[in-house]
Each structure stands twice: as C-alpha cells, then as structure tokens.
C-alpha cells in the first residue's frame, strides 16, 4: 500500500484517445454496412446521407465545442441554444449586407455577446447557472424575433424570415470524389459503404465545415496543451486551488464563456450560411443547442468524444431527412447490432446488469423494427432527439464531469 506499483497504474490506462476513436469509427461503419446489407437499405451508407449528416452535424458540433469551453471552465452553459439563435439572426443580417464572411463574423459576435451576458450573470453576480442559461435562451429568442421584425420585415415582408442571403461556396475534392463515387456504385459489400460515407465528406464541403472540423483539434490543443488551457480547466476542477496558485479564476471563466458563446453563434451561422440550409427562419435552431450540449456530455467532455456525438446526431438527422421512416427503421436494426456487440463486451467484462440491460434494449428495438413497416411520419423528424435521450441515458454512467461545474465561486472564500 505504501509503495504503489508503477505497473498497476500503467496497466489501468486505456487505449489512447485517437485509437479508441478509430476503433469506434470502424465499429460504426461495420454496423452500418451490415445493417444496410441485411435490411437492403443502401441509403444508410450513401454519400447523400453522409453529406447531409455533415451539414446537419455542423451546428451541433459547434454548439458542443462551445459547451466544452464553458463547462471545462466550470460554467454550465445551457444558454447555448439562445446564443445560437442570436448567431442565426446575426449571420443573416451580416450576410445580407456584407456577404458570407461578414455574416459569419456577425454570427460569432452575436453569440459572443450572449456568452458575455451569461458570464456577467454567472461569474460576477453568482446567478445559478441553469437560471441564467434559461434566461438567455428566452432572451435570445425574443431579441432575435424583435430584431427580425425590425430589420427583416421591411425587406422580406415577413417578420419570421430574412430575405435570401449569400451562402458559402462549396468545394469538392473532384478526383477523390469521382473515384469514391465509382466505387460506391459498384455495390460491393463494405467497400462501397465506406466509399459512400467518405464521398459525402469530400463532396460539396464549405469552408465553414472545414473551420469547424479544425476547431476540434484546435480546442484540444488549446485546452490541453497550453498554459492558458490548463488554467482554464483548473477553474472547472478546483477554483480554490487555482486561485491559491495565482490563477485569475474570474478572467479565465469570462474568456471561456465568451468563447463558448462565440462558438455557439458560429453554430447558428452554420444553419444560415450553408448551401441547402434555410435563411434566417424563426425557430430554426429548434433545440440544437441542447443537442450540442448533449453531444458534448456524451463525448465525456472531450473534443474527440464530442466529435463522435455530433456525428451521431448529425447522422440520425441526415438519415431521417434523406431516407424517411424506412431508413430510421433500418437504423433501429443497426442499433440492435451495435447493442449485440456491447452486450458481448459487457459479458466479457462480467458486467451482468449492463449486459441484461443491453439485451432488453436490443429486444425492444428489434421488436419495433419487426412489427413496423413504416414509423409514424410525425415522429420521424424527432429522430435525433430520441437518439439524444437514449444515448445520454446510456452514456451518463461513466462520465468524468469537471468537478467544480455549476458551483458558485467567490474569490477568497474557502471551498
């Protein structure tokens, strides 16, 4: 006991993050291609689906990155939704008058202002984080409606909608895309599925998508590899210890929450400025801020994890949009396969209860798949929301939450 064996600590260590991510990606592709083959639903892995998934996953990804920054600094940011709404209005306004890049900047700026407001409330005035977040959600919605009536109605004639705005150009890696397209059309098992999914990711990609995807490794680098990031995270883990070591907790929380709002605003902009998306439209955010937060939590408060979470929700959303009820049923089938794998893993680890739960879940999903030919069309658009609930319920069990999250902190007060 007094001499801890160094080998014990090393053997307990898991695979490095990138290896785990790659492993999960392989499992996901395997499950999808098996499901698409067995259910005869090629749409599960078509390039259309993955392209839509990328477009729909972006706002969620950006909101999740925003959530990551705030929550790592110990501030719960349930106001992401409101900040995204501000971002949608801001980007439509900016893009109408100054083009896409101005639109993007305005979206970020509006989100950032929402974030600053949250920071003032939570850090300076010690308002409960949830209360402030909810207030910002209501405020964001109201402000956007008010501004839309004021600015957009005279132009578009509709207070709920902006005039058409400029969209980002998209770029394709033509050669790669064509080659993958050919491969996809050959309909070979697995190979065509992988080709289809990849093709969607290299065809008609906007600069915004590239920026957003780069933000994932960038966030990792800043938060985990720099002095600023270490200090920011220490505020979320133990502000008292951080302060005792000379870290300005207030300042770091302010920066984190403002950045969080900026990312959320960017997420809002990605709803407006992408090809195939609507212009500013009332209620277009529709809970994506919350889903982003859920994706981040599902991703265990880590950049790689939230990328997976955003991909999952984007995929579910893209699938229901491009494939409808039948495709969602096929997804149920895929989920059954995935659960089967998880059950086997849990049995190997001798986690009997988890395995039993997995079996029960798989049985229910399979029953849904078996007894229905078509899901009620009213429910289909909510597929990502269902996925959120289920995934969170399963994932909530072994999360490593920043320790001081949601706590009020006043300088100089002990714990």
């Amino acid at each position, binding site marked *: *006991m*007094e*001499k*801890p064996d*160094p080998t014990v*600590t*090393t053997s*307990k260590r898991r695979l490095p993050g990138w290896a785990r991510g790659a492993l999960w990606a392989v499992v996901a592709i395997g499950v999808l291609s098996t499901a698409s083959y067995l259910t005869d639903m090629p749409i599960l892995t078509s390039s259309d689906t993955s392209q839509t998934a990328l477009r729909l996953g972006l706002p969620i990804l950006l909101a999740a990155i925003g959530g990551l920054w705030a929550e790592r600094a110990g501030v719960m940011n349930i106001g992401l939704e409101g900040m995204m709404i501000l971002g949608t209005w801001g980007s439509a306004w900016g893009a109408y008058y100054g083009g896409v890049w101005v639109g993007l900047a305005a979206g970020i700026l509006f989100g950032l202002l929402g974030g600053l407001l949250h920071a003032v409330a939570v850090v300076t005035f010690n308002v409960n984080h949830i209360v402030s977040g909810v207030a910002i959600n209501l405020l964001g919605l109201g402000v956007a409606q008010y501004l839309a009536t004021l600015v957009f109605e005279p132009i578009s004639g509709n207070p709920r909608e902006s005039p058409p705005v400029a969209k980002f150009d998209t770029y394709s890696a033509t050669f790669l895309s064509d080659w993958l397209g050919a491969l996809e059309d050959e309909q070979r098992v697995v190979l065509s599925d992988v080709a289809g999914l990849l093709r969607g990711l290299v065809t008609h990609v906007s600069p915004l998508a590239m920026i957003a995807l780069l933000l994932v490794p960038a966030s990792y680098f800043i938060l985990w*590899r*720099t*002095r600023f990031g*270490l*200090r920011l*995270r*220490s505020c979320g*883990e*133990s502000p*008292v*210890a*951080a302060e*005792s*070591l*000379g*870290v300005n907790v207030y300042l770091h929380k302010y920066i984190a929450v403002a950045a969080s709002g900026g990312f959320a605003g960017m997420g809002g902009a990605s709803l407006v400025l992408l090809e195939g998306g609507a212009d500013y439209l009332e209620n277009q955010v529709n809970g994506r801020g919350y889903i982003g937060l859920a994706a981040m939590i599902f991703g265990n408060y880590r950049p790689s994890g939230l990328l997976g979470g955003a991909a999952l929700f984007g995929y579910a959303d893209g699938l229901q949009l491009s494939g409808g009820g039948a495709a969602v049923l096929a997804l149920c089938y895929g989920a059954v396969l995935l659960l089967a794998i998880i059950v086997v893993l849990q049995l190997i680890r001798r986690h009997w209860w988890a395995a039993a739960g997995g079996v029960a879940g798989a049985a229910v999903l399979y029953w849904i798949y078996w007894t229905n030919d078509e899901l009620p069309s009213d429910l289909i658009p909510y597929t990502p929301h269902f996925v959120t609930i289920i995934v969170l319920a399963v994932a909530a069990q072994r999360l*490593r939450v*920043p*320790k001081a999250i949601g706590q009020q902190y006043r300088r100089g007060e002990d714990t």
Partner: protein
Amino acid sequence: MTEPEPVVELTGITKRFPGVVANSDVHLTVRAGEVHAVCGENGAGKSTLMKILYGMQQPDEGTISVGGEVVELRNPQDAIKAGIGMVHQHFMLADNLTVRENVLLGAEGLYGMGRKARAKLAELSDRTGLHVDPDTLVENLGVADRQRVEIVKVLFRGARIVILDEPTAVLVPQEVDALFETVRSMQADGYTFLFISHKLDEVRAIADEVTVIRRGTTVGTVDPKEVTSRQLAEMMVGSELPSPETRESTVTDRPVLRVSELRLDADDGDRSVLDDVSLTVRAGEIVGIAGVEGNGQTELVETVMGMRKASAGTVELASSGGELRDITRLGTLARREAGIGYIAEDRHRHGLLLRQPLWSNRILGYQTREPVSSGRLINPAAARQDTERVVEEYDVRTPGVEVLAGALSGGNQQKLIVGRELSGEPVLLIAAHPTRGVDVGAQALIWEQMRAARHNGLAVLLVSADLDELIGLSDTIRVMLRGRLVSEADPATVTPTELGSAMTGAGEEAA
C-alpha cells in the same frame, strides 16, 4: 557542528481576531537545514502562526525576516517568492487533473509546459519519493502520494523552506515512516522544514528543535533529544489545575448507555479506527474521553449516533422504563428519538444550517417531535415560540429568532445548540468539544447547563481536547489512543500533565 544561520525569524508576532487573541508575542527562530517542529494543542495558535508565515494573514504586530532580511508577506505569492512553501493539511489539488498539470498550474512560466518541466518534475518526484506516472489523475492517488504531489508542487516553485501543516494527520503509521524518510533525505539536500504537529512521539522522532506554543504564545524552544515526551506534554498543556469545583457525586447505578466491544473498520478496510471499545455511562454521570485528536473519538461519537455503521459490537440505550435496549441497528433519527442529544464537534458541518433562521435550526433533529412538529408537518409558529424560550433560557445573544444562524458568534451558536439538545428531554447527551472556539462567558454557561442536566440524571459522554474541561466536568475519564480505550483516570486526582502523557502514549516510556 556550528550553529547555522537562522533562515526564518519571527519576532513579537501578535495577531488578534475580533474577541480573540490568536497569537501574542510569538518568537520563532528556524535555522537553515533543520526540521523545526511547532507543537501545541488544538487552538493554541499554530495554524494562525503558519498562515501568517505563508502570507495568508497579516500580523498586527511583529516582524518576519527571511534569510536575514525583514520581509512583508501580503499573500502566498510573496511567501513563495521568499522561498517559503506550505503543504496544507487539506490538500489544494484538482482531482480531475493529472499530477503534472497540478504541479505546473500557475507556475507554467518557470520551466514552460514541455520537456524542461517534465525533467524538473521527474527530478523532484525522485527527490520526494513520488513514484507515480505524472500523467495519472490525482484522483487515482492515495493520500500519501497526494501529499507528495503537494510537496513537489511547493518545491517546483523554488521553495527552500517547507511548512508541513499536520502532515501525519491523514497518514497511517507506515506512510508516516516513509514521509519521515523523505523529509530526512531532503534535509540532507539543504531544505528546511517547519513541522506542525501535536503528536509528541512524531515530533521527537523527526525534529531537531521543538518550539511549544500554548494559548497563542511561545512557551519555549527545546531540543527534543534532551526532553521526554512527558516534559513536552507538560509544556503543551501547562501545569495549572482547573478551578476547583463542588464535586458532590450524582452518579447513580442505572446504566443509560452501554457500548460493548465496538469495532469500526476504516473506509479502505485494512485497519480499524475503533477497536474493542467498551464503556458504560450511568444516569447522572459524565464520562470524559481524553485523547489526542484523530485517535478515534470522532468515530466513536459518530458510531454511537448512528452516523457510521459499526463493524462489530453493540450499542445499548436505556429506554424510558430503564431497561437497556439494543440500538445498534437503528438510524440516527431513531436514536435521537430514543433520547440521545448530540452536540457535534463541528457545529458548522453537523450542528447548524448557517443560512437558515434560528427557529428552523431549532427544528433540526426534532422534525418528528413535539413541540416543533406534529410528526408529519412541522409547526413554524411553535418552533419560533420554543426558540424564543431557548434564546431566553440559554442566554443566546441575538436580535431575534429570524436571524440567520450564521450571523451569530460561535459562542451564541453553541449555546443555541446546547439549548436545543437539552430541550428534547434526552436521557443521554453526547457532547463533542462542546466549548471549542467559544468565548469564556459562553463556556461557563455551557458548563453550568451541563452540570445542571447531570444533576437531573442526564448521562453525558464528553469528548474534549481541553483537559481542564475534561477534568473539571467528568466523573470518570477514559483515555483513547489509536482507536482503543487504553486507560482510566480519576478526575479528582489526575493532573493535566499526567493526562497529557497518557494521551500521547508517553506515560509508558517515561514512567
């Protein structure tokens, strides 16, 4: 060996808090490369003194000089710059960050974040005997390793003088030995240590010099090799006897509490914090438990209260009819309803809700009983009324019962608690440090109330670090050491010095 230069000199340090003098005219001289122990009882002013030296508090009078120069330490950063580092008793670590991150935090500028910092960390880890992967989360470390991380943290910032505040309080004996080994090897490397403790055997084992503090002032500095633990204990507690008291015995032969062969295993399961504890408290009797803090008194109290679950043994309490009833399996509320009143040792953690008014604090623990509750619903009006009675009878100085408990002074808070606990017509009162941190007036009142209750047949189990209090109040004193009741003393004849020796286990060797 010639006398080395003094590196730290405190001269005439005085620190007053509202109503209390924490330190008065303290002198302390620490020489380079020595392990200098500062010992004294709880509340003697050791912690305040160290906080002053670490810049967390400013002295009202007196000077601090480090390395021959007078310095002003306004905050911990100043102290660190002067080469003083402190390892707090309660660790200042972020569990969810890795060892390396914890060490680097706030000192990233010294060696950067990269290879140089890693090398420095590895060197310091080696020096302090921290054999863990720097990328492990602190959460996964044991207490001893966390302590070493704290030491590394301090050294990383360039400290040459390390304050260890009660470093052994959280360690098991083997870990203490390992820590001492580390301290000795670092001493050989030229580090200076200030070692805060009240455990005399440890002080004698590690220190080159010992400065004793009593009641806020330095009593003297001695060489631990030339004095016995008994003499040290005498310096710590002083030798004056408590004020004589009318000691007509009210002890009856009716047992109220009987604890038999009680054992409690530590949370990590590999040792017992209570072992084979048996005692009986009779009606009208005050049984005092003496012991150096951390020897199982807290655990004994909490096990009798049902806050911890006994691993073995039984607890029996007299019911109203007088016969003993086994309450080992009952929960805390049921035990309170069975007639136990409880003055908790930490009134802020256990006794009160600081952000609630006095009257709702009156309800705490009585939420199922008259007069403040009908059993299902609480009765705020009656609670207010009864709180006013308590305020009146126990002289709680407050503008009214709507005041938040946190707004009262420690003494008045304690009087409220004593009043509350004596209001439920208890058959047994468990009083853990009932007068800790309260002023003299409140102390006298609390003692008076406890004597009166004893006179009316109340059984009292008293745990205290104040030996005068123990001797003055108790009818029987049992001494607790390492989780066992080791000896018994008669308060009529025992002196605080003798008791102090018995508490530290020094009696055996020095006798």
